[in-house]
């Protein structure tokens, strides 16, 4: 909720936000400190108001909404296929995970079956996205703590992943590569060899990051025992994804409620019972190794066949067909100008994004535009756990904890 600076004192003094406690107890002297919204360690425009007693955080309140662009409202004014590019812009670190969740939800409404090659490609792209997202997390998290080198190492590999995305979708970040009913295009010819070469190098690179950080005494001291969250707290506060698994809850939607053919892949779900920032670091690093494994399996077992469902009323026709067949041309014209209608109903489809449960709730009234699209974003819920993790700890730990929950403000504010 944006506010100008002169009003700040009055704003934070409101009873509902932070109540300075020096009047109640003359022994303690607290002050209110404003972090953000422009603060590098908040990974976007998050505003945190903390009440501190010396260096100790007494109370912490988050203030969001600075990036609210009304994406959910916009979706209601667009055709179903026009919503796909909007989903990219919610979470710029995992565009394809968002694409997948939305496409799966609409396909569930349409009761469309995606051919195996389409599903495998989606899994492959999702795991590459997860790698990419975790690389950004690791780089920025380490930079917050003061380990600048890791950032450059991570972005070196991320650059290669982004080049792969560019090769497949023509865009580095806002890929919009998925379509309702399948994928936009067949990947270019040299795509699979390039992915394989990168995946072969990845485990060694992950070892490299680990060598830079795991044995570093400053890193260990800043992370171990900081920002503790128990399993009960995590579940009560709606935490999902790596922070939930780091608190000892063995839950991964890819394994437990498989979608898009994940039941065909073998992988381990790393968990830890420590529940601190260190555990989250460890869980994500292990997840990167598992992602490499899943992506390799997807490459090895990549089936032949079409990448799009056989649904001429929903999927745009092949270019060649469009030029030679009257019927295909008509369908193309109809889909582009009037969209496709979706039977009335409501579905909730969740996928495991790099940050946790990314759910799309799509309500259709039988027309070509969604009646309501709601995104259940993992960061939005996880942010609620920030006070529980920070209160009673040192102020410097707030930065470490924010880095460890890996929030993306674009997805929180939508």
């Amino acid at each position, binding site marked *: 909720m944006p506010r100008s600076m002169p009003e700040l004192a009055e704003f934070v003094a409101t009873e509902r936000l932070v109540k300075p406690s020096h009047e109640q107890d003359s022994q303690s002297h607290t002050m209110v400190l404003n972090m953000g919204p422009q603060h590098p360690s908040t990974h976007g425009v998050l505003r945190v108001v903390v009440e501190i007693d010396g260096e100790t955080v007494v109370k912490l309140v988050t203030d969001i*909404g600075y990036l609210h662009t009304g994406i959910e409202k916009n979706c209601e004014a667009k055709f179903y296929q026009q919503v796909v590019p909007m989903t990219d812009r919610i979470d710029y670190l995992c565009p394809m995970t968002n694409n997948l969740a939305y496409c799966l939800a609409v396909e569930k409404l349409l009761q469309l079956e995606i051919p195996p090659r389409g599903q495998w490609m989606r899994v492959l792209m999702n795991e590459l996205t997860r790698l990419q997202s975790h690389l950004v997390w690791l780089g920025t998290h380490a930079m917050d703590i003061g380990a600048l080198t890791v950032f450059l190492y991570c972005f070196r590999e991320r650059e290669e992943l982004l080049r792969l995305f560019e090769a497949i979708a023509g865009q580095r970040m806002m890929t919009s590569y998925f379509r309702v009913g399948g994928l936009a295009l067949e990947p270019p010819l040299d795509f699979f060899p390039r992915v394989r070469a990168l995946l072969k190098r990845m485990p060694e690179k992950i070892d490299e990051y680990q060598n830079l950080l795991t044995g570093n005494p400053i890193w260990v001291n800043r992370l171990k025992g900081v920002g503790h969250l128990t399993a009960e707290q995590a579940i009560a506060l709606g935490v999902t994804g790596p922070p939930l698994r780091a608190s000892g809850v063995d839950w991964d939607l890819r394994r437990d409620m498989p979608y898009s053919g994940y039941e065909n892949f073998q992988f381990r779900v790393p968990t830890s019972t420590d529940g601190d920032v260190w555990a989250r670091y460890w869980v994500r690093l292990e997840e990167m190794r598992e992602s490499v494994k899943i992506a390799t399996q997807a490459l090895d077992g990549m089936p032949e066949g079409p990448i799009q469902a056989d649904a001429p009323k929903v999927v745009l026709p092949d270019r060649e067909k469009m030029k030679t067949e009257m019927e295909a041309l008509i369908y193309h014209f109809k889909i582009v100008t009037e969209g496709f209608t979706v039977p009335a109903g409501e579905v909730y489809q969740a996928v495991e994004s790099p940050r946790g449960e990314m759910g799309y709730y799509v309500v259709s009234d039988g027309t070509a535009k969604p009646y309501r699209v709601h995104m259940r974003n993992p960061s939005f819920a996880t942010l609620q756990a920030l006070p529980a993790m920070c209160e009673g700890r040192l102020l410097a730990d707030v930065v470490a904890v924010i880095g460890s929950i890996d929030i993306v403000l674009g997805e929180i504010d939508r």
Partner: protein
Amino acid sequence: MANEPIIGKEAVLTALPGNRAIEALSSADSQIITDARFDRNELTLTIQREKIRSACEIVRAAGYNFFSDLTAVDWYPAEPRFQLSYHLLSHHLKERVRLKVMVSTDDPAVESITSVWPASNSYEREVWDLFGVRFQGHPDLRRIMMPEEWEGHPLQKTYPVEGYR
């Protein structure tokens, strides 16, 4: 089974005899479920408006331990106008259930479930901010996305997409 929706309370009750959510809710209070639907493998139970908090408590005790999502749908101009959708998840059963509450325009308010799941705090604030549905008993019902002095609730269907200029 997935293709044909099962509509109506009686039909769903007979079609899904072992469902823990239905069992727990109907054994606690036979009137609490007013309607049900099983469509595209998703179970939706419509709950009496004034009993949503106790319904959440019952369902949580039945094993649906995780609160996933809460949002609203504006069915303007139909009455009751607002539909609140609670998406709950069971880690143990690996199953979801959607609880639905209909809220009318003349009194758009419902009991807060923050006492059952603290996670619903931000979600209820979001629904209040964007739809104008109040949550009684919420500890801090402020706007969350829009500025505090904002007028109107943007996700209502009566609010133009381009905003007011």
